[in-house]
């Protein structure tokens, strides 16, 4: 028999609700000041450095990290609340989101002390932007086929090759990337890759924009030509990146950003149908809300298990698998229901605009950060099938 799946009915503690009110009030002020428009998820100017600093000033970056590095030693559940409220408001989080969720924790675990003291407080102040260098032109889901090389040189490493689909590389100050330091071995094809911290402002890096089908510009090709990385920028074990890559995945995979990406179309549909929906609209909305509530309860449950020190890797992969599929299908379900909306509904144009954008965004949701296929492989392993 398989190990039991666990989704305990964990509730956010009372301090989270105080925090939620603070975040909502802050976001309302930012919206009123014109920093961003919650009804325009498709905006081009989603890089907002000043907003990033103000979020840092509030103490909402590096929330769970030790105080000595500028962190706030708050709970993972409190961070959860900040993340979900930002996402619901369509706030411009691009500049700080990756650093806060992923890069900071990697540095905390593997970077030497002086680098932690230098960079982590700046992440907490919302001053630096990170990107992640994983995919290459010929290796995506097959992470361990990466070829971009780090060659030992005096005092450090020379990097040659390229990364691709690198979100935010064009605005990033740093990248955490994996490079090949040795060939893989017969016994372990994952051997030979090492994690490095790359300073994007140093020479030998060309960032080439790649236009997306949404019309937005988020990802890039990053070409390294004899780019120098000092020895102390190596993170963790030489040739052993594969041991480090998996432990953070539970955090990365189960957050609210894994099912709320297209949420805005649902709110706008509810607005369009008004207070007295016909049966078809009511039934459609009811199902979507039930699915949303269930996703969120699963996601909060995983967050609570992480906070309790457990490693719910399978549960987290399940959240991303069904969460991303849900947010991918949501705009299509909303479109079906929108067909019955009164053509005179005052927000008809907004709903149409949002739907176009969400439908164009949808394909990427089950690809980025671990494809559906990769996730199902992990779940299958957890079930004891492989």
């Amino acid at each position: 028999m398989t190990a039991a799946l666990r989704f305990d009915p964990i509730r956010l503690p009372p301090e989270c609700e105080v925090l939620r009110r603070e975040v909502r009030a802050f976001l309302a002020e930012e919206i009123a000041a014109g920093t961003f428009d919650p009804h325009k998820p498709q905006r081009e100017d989603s890089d907002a450095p000043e907003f990033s600093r103000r979020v840092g000033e509030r103490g909402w970056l590096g929330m769970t990290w030790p105080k000595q590095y500028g962190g706030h030693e708050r709970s993972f559940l409190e961070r959860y609340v900040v993340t979900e409220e930002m996402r619901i408001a369509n706030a411009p989080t691009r500049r700080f989101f990756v650093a806060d969720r992923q890069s900071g924790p990697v540095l905390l675990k593997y970077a030497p002390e002086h680098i932690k003291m230098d960079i982590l407080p700046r992440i907490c102040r919302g001053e630096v932007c990170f990107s992640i260098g994983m995919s290459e032109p010929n290796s995506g889901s097959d992470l361990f086929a990466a070829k971009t090389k780090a060659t030992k040189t005096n005092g450090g490493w020379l990097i040659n090759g390229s990364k691709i689909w690198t979100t935010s590389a064009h605005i990033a100050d740093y990248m955490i990337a994996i490079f090949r330091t040795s060939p893989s071995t017969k016994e372990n094809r994952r051997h030979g890759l090492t994690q490095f911290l790359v300073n994007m402002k140093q020479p030998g890096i060309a960032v080439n924009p790649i236009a997306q089908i949404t019309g937005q510009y988020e990802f890039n090709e990053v070409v390294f030509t004899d780019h120098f990385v000092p020895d102390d920028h190596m993170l963790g074990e030489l040739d052993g990146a594969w041991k480090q890559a998996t432990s953070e995945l539970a955090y990365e995979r189960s957050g609210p950003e894994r099912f709320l990406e297209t949420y805005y179309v649902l709110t706008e549909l509810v607005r369009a149908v008004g207070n007295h929906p016909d049966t078809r609209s009511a039934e459609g909305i009811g199902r979507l809300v039930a699915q949303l509530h269930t996703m969120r309860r699963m996601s909060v449950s995983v967050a609570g298990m992480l906070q309790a020190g457990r490693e719910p890797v399978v549960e987290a992969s399940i959240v991303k698998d069904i969460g991303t599929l849900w947010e991918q299908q949501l705009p299509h379900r909303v479109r079906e229901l929108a067909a019955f909306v009164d053509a005179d509904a005052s927000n008809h144009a907004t709903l149409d605009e949002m739907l176009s954008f969400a439908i164009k965004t949808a394909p990427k949701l089950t690809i980025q950060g671990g494809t559906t296929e990769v996730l199902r492989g992990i779940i299958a392993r957890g079930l004891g099938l492989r």
Partner: protein
Amino acid sequence: MTDTDNIVAETAERIFADLADSQMIAKSKDGAWKAPLWQALADNGLPLSWVPEDCDGSGVSLAEGFAVLSAAGRSAVAVPLAETMLAGWLLAQAKIASPEGMITVAPASPKDRLTLNADGTVSGRARGVPFATEAKHIAVVASGIGGVSIALIEANACRIEAGLNLADDPSDTVTFDHVKPLASHPAPSGFDQNGLMLMGALVRSLQIAGALETMLGISVQYSGERVAFEKKISKFQAVQHNLAKLAGETSAALAAASSAADALSGSASDDDAIFLEVASAKIRCSEAAEKGAAIAHQVHGAIGFTREHVLHRYTLRALAWRDDFGSESHWAVELGRLVAARGADELWPLVASR
């Protein structure tokens, strides 16, 4: 709490393991397993779990009782344990003592209504009443000029047309024609038929989630035994991905049902929040039953389509339970109306409140 971390649920699990083994039941032609199973459950006070001790019940907490129902779902228990627990809970709302033996509840569908006549008798028709043909008594919610009452009625006093659900468990039509209750008492203020539907929907959600856990377990096990094309079928990626999807549906059902159970056990006091939790559980568990049962059968192939195999005990019950106490379509319409009435900008605050 839907885990086995309480002694009541552990007792129930032990009884199910000893006396409700699926293989034994699937082989049985005469239903001889039913009487000893019920007797063991009754001896341990499980059917009257939610009846207070001063009314001769076991007086266990709602949460402990919910864990019993999860276990009953995992074993696809086909005696009216859930129904009797529900009836005992309902009667206790009006401080009516529960009789011994099997009891069921009516109405079992939000579309049916029972009337409390001026002379104190009950009239009306309730369809899809589970186990009415086997129950000695029926606990009902009926409305009259004086408001809502809860009553205890003898099954013999009603006209019962036998029917069967998808899993061949009794699902009967009960006609009340000026039936005089054995006991009747006004429902507590604010309690009406919706209260019974909410509790019934949650009970069925927990049972469905439990059945899905077993479907996942036996499907994974079977995939590791069956060989095709010279490999265990668990080694085929297409099969692995199907089982991963089944794990996802099972997880969604477990999360939704245990969250709603936690809400009704006391973590929610706001009516809209309770409604969101329970409606979502019934909707999502029913959806999971459909997708999950299909995958479990697909993995098992033809053998799972036989009477002899145990799989249908779980799949058909999970599918059947969708229909009781409001189908997913019913709850979706009601939830959609609630969300629309609150307005677009109140949707997220409602979801985030849980």
